């Protein structure tokens, strides 16, 4: 039986696909986008999350964990500042967790969305979950598209809707800002387009990185070449760094956070792609 760590459920997710949805966040991602706002979704291993305010430095956590922070520390903290980031679920266990709310989601034209982290980094688990939900609800996957062709095709079969991120078309820049090669991402994107499955493309507008004229033009052209007619643009959220401290890391993006995202909807329109700018600070 497969299992995966889930680090969050968002009930009543409003922007993760059609209708009212529950979004399931799988832990672990092969990319390291500099602007990632979900650092607890990056590592595949479970980790301790520590709330920043309220620590009295009493040391109870380290004592219980034998000098380290671990599951024993979580229970020991008298101020309840610690928790494990992920909880392990099997597909059956997940279905149990969702079963009661599925009728509500279905009545409201929604369903379940798998996000992360990178859900495709758990292809077997993801596939089994999707297969279990088949016929029970509408299934969406939110992905960076980074995975082998074979598992991608496999998951594609069991998914009703994709939210597909495109970040940078230039391979070198992609590598530099996300740590990964974008070849499989673009390949899988073409496979998705050819499949005829409904999807929405999402483009994060990172100031000076992805929102450049060059990159937006490249993406718009790529969409146009693949017959894609619309896209969602996500302005950079300046709260992106707020969770890093709780996983014991520092947020150090290599771009200027204070610059406001450029949406440049004109570029998309010139390629026949209708852009929708999601909520957030931006200039046109």
């Amino acid at each position, binding site marked *: 039986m497969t299992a995966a760590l889930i680090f969050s*459920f*968002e*009930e*009543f997710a*409003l922007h993760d696909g059609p*209708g*009212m949805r*529950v979004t399931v966040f799988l832990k672990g991602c092969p990319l390291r986008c500099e602007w990632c706002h979900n650092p607890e979704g990056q590592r595949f291993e479970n980790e301790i999350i520590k709330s920043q305010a309220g620590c009295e430095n009493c040391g*109870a956590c380290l004592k219980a964990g034998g000098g380290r922070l671990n599951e024993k520390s*979580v*229970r*020991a*903290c*008298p101020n*309840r500042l610690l928790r494990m980031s992920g909880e392990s679920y099997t597909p059956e266990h997940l279905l149990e967790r969702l079963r*009661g*709310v599925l009728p*509500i*989601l279905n*009545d*409201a*034209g929604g369903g379940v969305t798998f996000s992360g982290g990178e859900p495709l980094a758990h292809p077997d688990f993801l596939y089994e979950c999707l297969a279990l939900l088949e016929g029970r609800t509408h299934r969406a996957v939110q992905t960076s598209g980074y995975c082998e062709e074979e598992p991608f095709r496999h998951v594609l079969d069991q998914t009703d809707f994709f939210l597909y991120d495109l970040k940078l078309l230039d391979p070198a820049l992609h590598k530099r800002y996300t740590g990964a090669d974008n070849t499989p991402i673009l390949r899988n994107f073409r496979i998705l387009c050819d499949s005829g499955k409904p999807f929405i493309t999402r483009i994060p507008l990172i100031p000076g990185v992805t929102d450049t004229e060059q990159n937006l033009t490249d993406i718009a052209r790529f969409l146009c070449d693949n017959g894609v007619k619309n896209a969602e643009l996500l302005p950079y959220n300046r709260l992106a760094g707020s969770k890093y401290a709780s996983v014991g890391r520092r947020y150090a993006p290599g771009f200027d956070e204070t610059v406001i995202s450029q949406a440049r909807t004109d570029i998309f329109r010139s390629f026949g792609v209708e852009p929708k700018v999601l*909520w957030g600070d931006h200039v046109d």
Partner: protein
Amino acid sequence: MDGLRAELLSKSETDDGSHADFYAAALQTVDAALDYADRYCEFAKTNAPKTLYRALCRVPHEPPESFYEACVFLQFIIFTLRCNRNTHLGLGRFDQYMLPFWRSDLKKGLPEETLFETLEEFFISLNFDTDIYQGMQLGDNGQSLMLGGYDLDGQDRYNELSEAVMNASLELRLIDPKINLRVCSKTPAERFILATRMTKQGLGFPQYSNDDVVIPGLIRLGYAPEDAADYTVAACWEFSIPGKGAEIVNIDQMVFPKVVRRELFDHLEACDSFDELLEYVKLGVAFDAGEIVGKRSGHHYPASPYLSVFIEGCVQSGKDVSEYGAKYNNFGAHGVGIANAADSLAAVREVIYERREYPKKTLLQALAANFEGYGELRNRLLSCPKMGSDDDRTDGIARILLETWANALNGKPNGAGGIFRAGTGSAHEYYYSARNVGATPDGRKSGEMYGSGFSPSLTGKPTGPLSCIRSFTKYDMTRLVNGGPLSMELHDSVFRDEEGIEKVAQLVMAFIRLGGHQLQLNSVNRDVLLDAREHPEAHRDLIVRVWGWSGYFVELDKQYQEHIIRRTEFQV
């Protein structure tokens, strides 16, 4: 009121003398009110706009003939009742009894905008001088009104005036009147969307009540079906029949966590199984319900002849409301802290009985010590599934407690010609009655507040609004129609676009379809609340829902501010 006066006179003349006191007193109060009206009219002659003066020349003596006069009349009645110390009287089904005036004015050719302005002026007037009303806190004045509703044959009574009231409230953004909306599984989606726009304002209303549940529930309690279909809220959330009831809807409360704690200390060590323990808790709940019946039966309140003249049955029978002259004289009591109680028992079952992780004695010692030195045990208890997370086993315990409560109270004669009825509200009891109750096994520390009304505790880990509405709709709510809503806080960002508003509306519809009885949503932003606590001067106009009413955040006592902030930890 001249007609009323004439009726009182003729009644007193034909009366055999046994109700002479009542008629004399009633006449005296009506005369006093009319006298006051005359003085007011005289004053208005030189000090008020012509329209008001002209209206006062007719009402309250004569029946109103226009919507404007009806509003003046209504304001007069409200004011004089307050002066008579009849507090927490709701405005009832405003969109029904005011509709004839609204329609006839339209027919007479009055532009709708003029009527709408009158309506808004009336609402604004309800926000004046509210400090003369007795309430727990400023804002707790019972000025609630009910919109919509379905007849027994399913006919929808929501009308153009209901819509106008909604729009006026949307436009004015004032805390009075508080809007209640009767809905059911057939209510069209657009109405929920309009109502969600109102929720977006952050005033904490409308509060929804579900006709599919409340009407059958009231009929089960013995209300005549046509009266049940005419229900409104008394002031906060308790359902009552306008003009026909002199009911004390919040006469007492049964504090679930207190019972659980008591039974644990008395019986935990002797009980070999959880079921055995649960039996004791059930007995405890029934015992406390019995205490309420014993203590409150035959409760008398002071005679109130002026109020009585407005209640059907009193003038006819010559009996004051205090002599139970009204058609309905029931007493309501609320079960407080259900989530803390169910969570506590679920934790005892898991940690003590099923997994045997701690000895019973340790648990009792930890509770007695208010978890001082038992932090690990407390963390363990806190990690058990809570009511509000759609956990069937925890919710199953809640069901048993609620059924026991309803069975023990509903229908018991109250010595006042009526019965008792069980509810799920808490009002300020989430704070008051929690103060004296020691630590409970859900992880709640001594004196910590309970959840508000029929809502998750403040101690559990939040799951989400869908699980929450599931958790709170698994019960036969027709047995709990003394009322008391599920309250949920949604982050204000949810409401920022049309799509979000539509989805919140769908959430409400799901709750209604699932058979919830009453729902109240809040649009809040925790950061704003925290800032308002620190810098009240910058947030004078911040309005929040407190329990059955909304008020200005900065004017609330500390403990209520605290409760509202803690509640927001559960928002999405």
